[in-house]
């Protein structure tokens, strides 16, 4: 398995910066790529995994609406607000009931924020 030096393409170290910043604040967060189908989750931190009870391998590549966390008490209005924020690329805070893997429910305040990468 030859290890090659990366070429001079700009690195996505801004993602690493975001991760280190929010991890340092003990936030539970995921990062999703809006340019991939379903806005797939590309990273979730340990706090998020612990909160929802799923492993990182189970969460990766899921759509960022996190519909695998929805359940009977999850309000459709909250789901619709999230979907609208995604489609409209707007920043939004939504309160929503999410379900852990073991079925327990938790009321969460989701904050949806956008990051653009600018090429230097």
């Amino acid at each position: 398995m030859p290890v090659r030096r990366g070429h001079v393409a700009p690195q996505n170290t801004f993602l690493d910066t975001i991760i280190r910043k929010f991890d340092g604040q003990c936030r539970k967060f995921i990062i999703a790529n809006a340019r991939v189908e379903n806005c797939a989750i590309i990273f979730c931190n340990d706090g998020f995994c612990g909160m929802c009870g799923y492993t990182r391998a189970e969460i990766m590549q899921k759509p960022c609406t996190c519909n695998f966390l929805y359940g009977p008490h999850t309000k459709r209005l909250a789901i619709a607000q999230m979907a609208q924020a995604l489609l409209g690329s707007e920043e939004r805070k939504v309160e929503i009931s999410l379900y852990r893997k073991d079925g327990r429910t938790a009321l969460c305040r989701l904050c949806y924020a956008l990051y653009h990468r600018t090429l230097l």
Partner: protein
Amino acid sequence: MRADICVHLNRQVFNEHPAFRLASDGCLRSLAVEFQTIHCAPGDLIFHAGESVDTLCFVVSGSLEVIQDDEVIAILGKGDVFGDVFWKETTLAHACANVRALTYCDLHIIKREALLKVLEFYTAFANSFSRNLILTCNLRRRVSSSYCAQHTVPLAPPLKG
């Protein structure tokens, strides 16, 4: 003696991954001897798209990005596993994406042939390993990438008249 040292060197992988919990000492020693530790600098390519995926990699520290068609599809960090599920497949896969180190990384890797040889000998372990090891990123499978505009989630619940 050498095998015991190797088990100690790979203790982070063996202790943290549930897939190795049911491994006997002999099995761990056989596996440990086959593991290699590689250290990557930022920007190093671990897998190039199109290459054969012939190693299973465990991330011990650092972070890496998986880039398919110029889009980041995953960020891997400590505790993640990537490569291919050799034990379930008969042929070698082509890597669907580049895997590049974002920071200085330590990876513990094991070659496909070596892993299959150990799994063939320790069949009981092979069953639990196959059940419990879930890859964070499987480089065999492409992630379909198209812009997010094709959502079909309704914007608002329909009004009932």
